C-alpha cells in the first residue's frame, strides 16, 4: 500500500511538473508574439523610429558601434557629397557596443521598413568579439539576437577556438546568459512598463538619444577645459592615448589567414546589405585598433570595398590628440574632419566608377 501510495504521489508530482512546464512554455511562446523587444530609452529603437519617419528620403546609412555613433556626421557628409555633385541624404545608426551580430539585427530591422531609396550602407564592424564583455550580456540589443540557433552557432565557434578551460567558460557564459534571457522573454515588457510609468518618446528624449540634429550623430564633448575630476579624467585619457599611439604606429597586419568565423560574419553583413538593395562599403576608422581580419577579408575579395582610415602616419591630423576623445573615439572636431575625408573618398570612388548603387 505504502509503495503504491508513494508511486501515485511521485506520479502526481511528475504530472504537475509536466503541466507546469507545458503552461510555462505555451505562455512564453505566446508572449514572444505579443511583446516585441525595446523601450522608450533604447538608443537603437529611437534611431529606427526616427529613420522610419523619413525612410524613403535616405540614400545612405552608417552602421556600427559607438565609434560610428560618435564619429560619422551626416550633416557634414551630405554637404560635402552634394557640393561634389554626388548628393546623398544620410543617417547614423551607430550604437555603443554594436558588433557584427548587432549590426545584422539592425539591418534586419531597417529591411523591415523597406526604405525605397537606400543605395549605400557604410559599415564599421569593429571586430567580431567572440570574447564579449560580460557586462554587456544583459544589454537589450545583445539579448535580442541571442536566439538559441545563433547562440549554438556561436558556441560551436568558441568551442573550436581551442581556448583553455577557464577562458572557454568565460567566453561561453555571457552568451548563454543572454540566450536564457532571450528564451524566457526577460525585459520584453519594457514598453509596457515605460507606458505605465508615463515614459513617452518625447522630443527631449529623442534629441538626447538621436543627437541634436536628429540624424543619429551624437558628438562627444571637449573636456579639455574641464575642471576637477572631469579635467583629471581627460588628462589621464590623453596620456594613455599618447602612450599607445607610438606603439600603434609600429603595428602591422600579421601573417596567416583571416579568422574564418570573422570572414563568414563579414560575408553575412554584406549579404544583408545587398538584400536591402544597397551597396556595402566597409570602413575602418582612425583608432588605435587594427581590424586585421577585416583587412585580410578585403585582401581576399570577401569584402568588395574597404575604405581605410586607420593609418596613423597617413591620417596624422585624425590622430592628433586635440581631435580625439580617447584611443577609439574622435571628438566633435575630429569627427567632422574625418567625415569630410570619408565623403571625399566616397565621392572619388563613385566618380571613378568603383562604387555605384545596385
Amino acid at each position, binding site marked *: 500500500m505504502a509503495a503504491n501510495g508513494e508511486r501515485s504521489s511521485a506520479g*502526481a508530482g511528475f*504530472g*504537475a*511538473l509536466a*503541466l*507546469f*512546464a*507545458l*503552461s*510555462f*512554455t505555451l*505562455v*512564453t511562446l505566446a*508572449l514572444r508574439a505579443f*511583446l516585441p523587444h525595446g523601450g522608450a*530609452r533604447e538608443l537603437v529603437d529611437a534611431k529606427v523610429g526616427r529613420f522610419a519617419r523619413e525612410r524613403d528620403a535616405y540614400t545612405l546609412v552608417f552602421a556600427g558601434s559607438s565609434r560610428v555613433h560618435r564619429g560619422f556626421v551626416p550633416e557634414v557628409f551630405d554637404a560635402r557629397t552634394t557640393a561634389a555633385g554626388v548628393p546623398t541624404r544620410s543617417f547614423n545608426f551607430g550604437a555603443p557596443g554594436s558588433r557584427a551580430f548587432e549590426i545584422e539585427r539592425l539591418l534586419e530591422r531597417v529591411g523591415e521598413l523597406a526604405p525605397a531609396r537606400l543605395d549605400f550602407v557604410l559599415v564599421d564592424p569593429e571586430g567580431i568579439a567572440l570574447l564579449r564583455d560580460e557586462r554587456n550580456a*544583459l*544589454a*537589450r540589443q545583445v*539579448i535580442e539576437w541571442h536566439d538559441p540557433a545563433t547562440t549554438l552557432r556561436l558556441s560551436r565557434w568558441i568551442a573550436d577556438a581551442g581556448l583553455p578551460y577557464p577562458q572557454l567558460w568565460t567566453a561561453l557564459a555571457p552568451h548563454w*546568459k543572454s540566450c*536564457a*534571457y532571450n528564451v*524566457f*522573454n*526577460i*525585459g*520584453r*515588457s*519594457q514598453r509596457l*512598463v*515605460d507606458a*505605465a*510609468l*508615463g*515614459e513617452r518618446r518625447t522630443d527631449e528624449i529623442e534629441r538626447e538619444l538621436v543627437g541634436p540634429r536628429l540624424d543619429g550623430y551624437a558628438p562627444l564633448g571637449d573636456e579639455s577645459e574641464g575642471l576637477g575630476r572631469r579635467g583629471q579624467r581627460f588628462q589621464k585619457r590623453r596620456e594613455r592615448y599618447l602612450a599607445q599611439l607610438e606603439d600603434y604606429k609600429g603595428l602591422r597586419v600579421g601573417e596567416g589567414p583571416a579568422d574564418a568565423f570573422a570572414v563568414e560574419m563579414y560575408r553575412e553583413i554584406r549579404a544583408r546589405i545587398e538584400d536591402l538593395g544597397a551597396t556595402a562599403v566597409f570602413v575602418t576608422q582612425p583608432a588605435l585598433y587594427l581590424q586585421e581580419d577585416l583587412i585580410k577579408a578585403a585582401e581576399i575579395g570577401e569584402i568588395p570595398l574597404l575604405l581605410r582610415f586607420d593609418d596613423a602616419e597617413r591620417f596624422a591630423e585624425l590622430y592628433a590628440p586635440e581631435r580625439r576623445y580617447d584611443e577609439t573615439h574622435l571628438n566633435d572636431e575630429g569627427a567632422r574632419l574625418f567625415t569630410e575625408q570619408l565623403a571625399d573618398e566616397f565621392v572619388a570612388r563613385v566618380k571613378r566608377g568603383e562604387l555605384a548603387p545596385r
Partner: protein
Amino acid sequence: MIFTELSFLAFFALVFGVHWALQGARARKLWLLAASYCFYAAWDWRFLSLILGSSALDYLVGLKLEASGDERARKRWITLSVALNLGLLGVFKYANFFLDSALALARSLGFEANPRVLGIVLPVGISFYTFQTLSYSLDVYRRQLRARRDPLDFALFVTFFPQLVAGPIVRAIDFLPQLERKRLWSDVRVRACLTLFLVGYAKKACVGDNISSLVDPYFESPADFDALSAWSAVLFYAVQIYCDFSGYSDMAIATAGLFGYQLRTNFDFPYLATSIRDFWRRWHMSLSSWLRDYLYIPLGGNRGSRLFQQRNLLLTMLLGGLWHGAGWNFVIWGALHGAALVAHREWERAGLRLPALLGLLATFWWTCLAWIFFRAPTLAGALVTVRSFVLFDSPGTRSTGWVPLAAFAALALLHWACSKRWLERASERMPEWSYAVALGVLASLALACTNAAVKPFIYFQF
C-alpha cells in the same frame, strides 16, 4: 549571485536536489554548509575568512560562557565578543565614515589634514551575520540559550545561504533547535513556498527594479524636476525599497522553507500601518525586534522617567539608522523615525487617537519623508526634495506628469488586496493540476515583466 538571477535558480536546483537525495541529517547539513560558503564566495571569496573568523569567535565564546560559573569571567567573555563583533563592523563599515566626519570637523575648525584614503571594501552581509552571532553570545550569556557544542550546527546557523547576505536576521533561539529535528520532505509546504518565492520575485524583479527608471533620474538631479515629479519619485521610492527588501525576504523564507527550515516573517504590509509604532512592528521585523531586545531594553527600555524612556527610544532609532549605512543621511533617517516614535508615545499618553485611515496616511507620509534622506545621495539634494514634498515648491520644470501617480494608486490597491491574502488562500485550495498550470503561467509572466538589467538588492549594502 542574487535570487532573481537565472544562475541562482541553477545553483538552487543543484543544492536542493542533492540535499533531499542525501539520507543522513549530518550529510545534509554538511552539504548545506558547503553550499552556503560557495554562495558567499561567489560574492567575494576573500571575505570567507571574515565570516569563518566571526563564527569561530562566537562559537568559542559560547562554550566559555556556558562552562564558566564565575560572573566576572563571563562578563569578560561577553565583552570580548561584543567588542570584536562591533569592532569588525566598525572597521569594515564605519571606519571611512568616522574618518571622513572627523576630517570635515577638523577642516571646519581650520585644521589642515590630508590623510591616506582607507579604501575599505564593505563585505556583503556583514551587518546581518554580525548581529546574528552577537545575539547568540548574548543569549548564552543571559542563559536563555544553551551553547551549541557541534561546530557544524553553529556554522550553518551563521552562514545558511538563504538569509546570509540580506536577512532576515535569524535568532539562534529560533534556528538552532530546528537543526536537531529530523527533516522530512513530506513536512515541506511546497506550494506555500513556491507561491511565496514567486510573489517575492515579482516584487523585486517586476516592480522594484522597473520602478528605478523613474526614481533614479529624479534623485540624480532633483532641482530639475517639479513638485509633482518629486511626489512621484518619493512615493515610488517607498514602493521600490519595500518591494526590493520584502521581496528578498520572501524569497529567503521560501528558499529556506524548501529545505525544511522556517524563518520568521520579516514584513507584514508595513504601509498599512496606522501609526509609526505599528509601522515598526511590520517593517523589517527581525531588525526591530533585535534592536528592541539587545539595545532598547538593555538601555533601560520603558523603565525610568519619561525623558529617560524617550532618550532610549531616540538612541535606539539613531543607532538603527546607522546600522543601515555609514552616513549622516541614515542617522537623519533614524532620528526622524525616533522623533516620530517619541511624539506618538506622548500622543497616546495624552489619550489622543486618530481615525485609522488618517493614521495610515499620516504614517505613510512621514515614512516617505524619512525615505528622502535614505535615498538622496547628498544632503542638499534631500533638502530640495523635502521642500518639494512638503511645500510643493520646486525650482525645476521637468515633469513626469500624472501617469506615475495613477500607477502608484494601482500599486497601493494591490498592496491592500495582497494584505487580504487571497492569493495564498486560493493557491492552497486549488487542485494540484490547476495550481501547476497557474504557476507556469505566472512564472512566465513574471519573467517577461523582469527588468533585463539585474540590479542588486538595495539592502545588500547594509
